[in-house]
């Protein structure tokens, strides 16, 4: 338990000194996870809403697939993306392995099913409520998708938080495709993994506390945003 105390002290020390390595790690974690989350939202939210609105044969199968992929193991995704991006793999010529873009790609792969499945869930309910009115108004399918997403923007915010939470806490995929390179692809979670394996448990705990604080901050901002929409 005194490891926890030392962890607190270390965390406060690092933050107050503005340790440059820590700053770099925090910024990288945020950059990778936020970029991946927004990209997944951009791709996945319209798809999720579209699945609620459009009626076509494969629809049931796709919804099932999206929900099933919620359980995709991050380290397996990491392995798949690694093989894809390896110089001996199909996308090797882009030289993307062991870089931040590779980490973003892996996280987008993990997050998109989450976004699709969760968006579909609330879009389905909203469509039941508003679908009739929208169709009477003569709205096109794309238009309907945007409208439903706009109406459900508070739920969309929850989807964002769920996806971001998954991204910022993830370590299995990004450590495989990123390589945990110091000063380049080391994020909060991969740094914690490294410090733990080095036996520096106090530092690992300290970093963990910083990560939690980061996550809480993002959630708090989102909460305030949602409140301002209610007014």
């Amino acid at each position, binding site marked *: 338990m005194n490891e926890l105390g030392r962890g607190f002290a270390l965390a406060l020390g690092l933050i107050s000194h503005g340790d440059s390595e820590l700053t770099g790690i925090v910024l990288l974690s945020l950059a990778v996870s936020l970029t991946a989350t927004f990209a997944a939202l951009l791709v996945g939210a319209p798809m999720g809403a579209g699945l609620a609105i459009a009626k076509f044969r494969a629809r049931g199968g796709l919804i099932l697939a999206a929900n099933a992929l919620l359980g995709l193991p991050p380290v397996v995704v990491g392995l798949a993306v690694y093989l894809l991006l*390896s110089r001996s793999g199909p996308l*090797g010529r882009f030289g993307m392995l062991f870089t931040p873009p590779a980490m973003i790609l892996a996280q987008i792969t993990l997050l998109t099913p989450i976004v699709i499945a969760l968006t579909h869930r609330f879009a389905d309910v909203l469509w039941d409520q508003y679908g009739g009115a929208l169709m009477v108004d003569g709205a096109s399918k794309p238009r309907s998708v945007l409208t439903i997403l706009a109406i459900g923007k508070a739920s969309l915010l929850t989807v964002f938080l769920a996806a971001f939470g998954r991204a910022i806490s993830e370590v299995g995929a990004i450590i495989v495709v990123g390589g945990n390179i110091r000063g380049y692809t080391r994020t909060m979670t991969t740094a914690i993994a490294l410090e733990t394996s080095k036996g*520096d448990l106090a530092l690992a705990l300290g970093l963990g506390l910083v990560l939690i604080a980061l996550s809480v901050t993002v959630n708090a901002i989102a909460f305030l945003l949602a409140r301002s929409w209610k007014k």
Partner: protein
Amino acid sequence: MFRLAALVLTFAFASLPQTPVVLAQEHSITLASTTSTEESGLFGHLIPIFHAATGIEVRVVAVGTGQALAIGARGDADALLVHDRAGEDKFVADRNGIDRRDVMYNDFVIVGPKSDPAGVRGMKDARQAFEKIAASSSPFASRGDDSGTNRMELRIWSSLALAPRGSAWYRELGSGMGATLNTAVQMTAYVLTDRATFAHFQNRGDLAILVEGDKLLLNPYGSILVNPAKWPQVKAQDARIWHEWLTSAEGRAAITSYRVNGEQLFFVGTPFGN
């Protein structure tokens, strides 16, 4: 809400470290090396010196030696710094690498609980120590991850015609050196570890060095260039600069100047007889 999204996205992209696409002119190489080298802190000491001298950034992917060789065999690294001579020679023989050079060496030590149930403290013969540990069925933590350290350990067991896998006292962990030490502390087990990682290790608990000094335990490191003929995308020029710097006077000075608690951890030249 879209304005906020745009703002955050801009921030996100701005904080992103330079990607290969954006900064094509930046000089960097990917070095596949081992967890023990990374965890000993050597790279934190060496790389800034090299970078200051040459402007080349060295990005270290630290994994077990087996995995480092596999990464090199796929062309995903530009150079290797590993410690398994047999593996290194095979790597070159398979045309995956060129110009293998001796760089430095350190040594392995056998650490264990201070109570020393197997009675190996102070022994000068590593093989005999292993024999006593097996004979007393004392817990032994193996890395079990095809690393250079693991390969050394397995060579000792097989030289004794022992195959401890499957025995209750032999714990195969499949972990890096630090993680293995962590677990060994909790299990109060014997471990074969490189001296450098143990010197740097913060969480020793009851473990102490019990056996050291056997020539068998010398651990030489080799640098290999990933074969640019096989992998045209390899950054051959910058990798060669690193490769040659390691064995130059400056490189050697940098390696031997690394200290943890005043103790030198890596030595240059080739260990006798190896």
